[in-house]
């Protein structure tokens, strides 16, 4: 086997010096949300790091995740593809299509057996296999086949991680998450609708750097990016604590930047890096733009009872339930009273009036 092409080889090929490499390492630390004190370790790891082969499969999805990753700014998508990974199959981004594309996937799988990373966006329909197919292969089959010799799987976006929009009530295609089908491989969940671009690239950079799975939380998300809730890092938090809430999107409170809880903010129960990593090349994040967090990196966020309803509000419509309960209550109490009255009447009938004569 020929010597694998390492990241160092690649950078040296571009004429980058050792000093340039060390700079690269310090920037990588930032991308991985690691403290600068770890730079020497990162340098050591990167010296021998090989660019992993990446196969990217898209199932029932809207391509928003791919749209998002192409907006990554650190690294840019070009740099990600050329410096960090070897993107061997991605049917939206690659030039080839049809059988040529499938051949590229099969080739990459063979060349990098048990080494490649499988990235998946989109959920998998388990109803009719014909609901979603690629080159005549249904999604579930393609996932099983491609996952078989993957080193690890990165499920990207809320559809691949938790089912997302296709899984939302009434889930017509019986859509499920990657983790519902693949049980014997390490899976890194990178949810979000879409995920933050630099979080996706950061996870891949972590792979390149350390060749390991990052620390995951109980929903399978890397703790370095999903360790804090939006609310924990929200700059509007002081207003929440004081109980100062915007009531509408254009009242005085909204203009003064008060907390968006009453407008439906799901920040307190949403774990993601939006408040620090931000969007659009670090410009801002939804709450900074005046919109409540919709909780898009949490399971079933579509079915949480409305994006603009407060977290403390029930998610069901009350009317019918209340009417049914009232009717049932009325019927039950009338019935109970009737039973009670007849019992009373019976008891009264059995009652003999006792006179003084009886006592003698």
């Amino acid at each position, binding site marked *: 086997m020929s010597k694998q092409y390492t990241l160092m080889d690649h*950078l040296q090929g571009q004429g*980058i*010096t*050792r*000093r*340039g*490499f*060390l*700079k*690269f390492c*310090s*920037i990588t*630390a*930032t991308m991985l*949300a690691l*403290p*600068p*004190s770890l730079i020497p370790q990162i340098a050591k790891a990167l010296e021998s790091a090989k660019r992993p082969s990446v196969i990217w499969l898209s199932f029932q999805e809207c391509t928003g995740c791919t749209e998002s990753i192409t907006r990554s*700014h*650190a*690294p*840019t998508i*070009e*740099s*990600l593809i050329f*410096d960090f990974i070897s993107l061997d199959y991605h049917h939206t981004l690659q030039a080839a299509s049809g059988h040529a594309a499938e051949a590229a996937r099969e080739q990459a799988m063979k060349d990098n057996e048990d080494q490649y990373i499988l990235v998946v966006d989109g959920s998998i329909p388990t109803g009719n296999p014909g609901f979603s197919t690629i080159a005549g292969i249904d999604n579930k089959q393609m996932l099983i086949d491609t996952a078989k010799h993957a080193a690890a799987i990165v499920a990207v976006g809320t559809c691949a991680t938790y089912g997302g929009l296709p899984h939302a009530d009434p889930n017509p295609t019986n859509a499920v998450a990657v983790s519902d089908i693949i049980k014997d491989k390490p899976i890194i969940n990178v949810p979000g609708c879409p995920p933050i671009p630099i979080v996706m690239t950061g996870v891949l950079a972590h792979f390149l750097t350390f060749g390991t799975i990052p620390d995951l939380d109980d929903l399978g998300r890397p703790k370095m990016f999903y360790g804090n809730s939006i609310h924990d*890092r929200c*700059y509007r938090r002081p207003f929440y604590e004081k109980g100062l809430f915007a009531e509408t999107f254009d009242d005085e409170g909204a203009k003064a930047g008060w907390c968006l809880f009453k407008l439906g903010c799901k920040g307190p129960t949403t774990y993601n890096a939006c*408040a*620090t990593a931000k969007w659009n*090349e*670090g410009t801002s994040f939804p709450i*900074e733009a005046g919109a409540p967090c919709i909780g898009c990196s949490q399971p079933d966020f579509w079915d949480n009872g409305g994006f603009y309803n407060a977290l403390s509000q029930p998610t069901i419509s009350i009317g019918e339930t209340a009417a049914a309960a009232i009717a049932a209550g009325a019927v039950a109490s009338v019935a109970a009273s009737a039973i009670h009255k007849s019992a009373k009447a019976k008891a009264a009938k059995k009652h003999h009036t006792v006179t003084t004569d009886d006592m003698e």
Partner: protein
Amino acid sequence: MNSAVKVCTHQNAIPILHEIKHALLKLAENNQATTIDLSSLPMTSQDTEQLLSTLGKGEVNVTLTSAGESTFWETQFPGVWVTQHQPHFSSKQLTYIEICLFPSLLMAQQADITDGLNRLQEIMS
């Protein structure tokens, strides 16, 4: 110096100034260097702007052109440096505050020295 701190009123800049003060103390006493990565902190662009303007500019200015351009400058507080990378692979500038005698990235690296030595010998032979 007190007046400079007063200029910096935005909430997130103050704790970082405190951190810089502590780091500078460590540098003065034990020659211990610290790096603060501003992109990992929940800062708004106004926060960063205010912090940098409070720190001001000192007497050293360096440009590094390797894997994208980087600028280094010493602030008006000797030992406190600002490093800004414009990585070749990124479209966003990354800003760090380094509290050290001299940013280590600017020092010549052993591998590069050897490489340069070879090239020099080649020219001279």
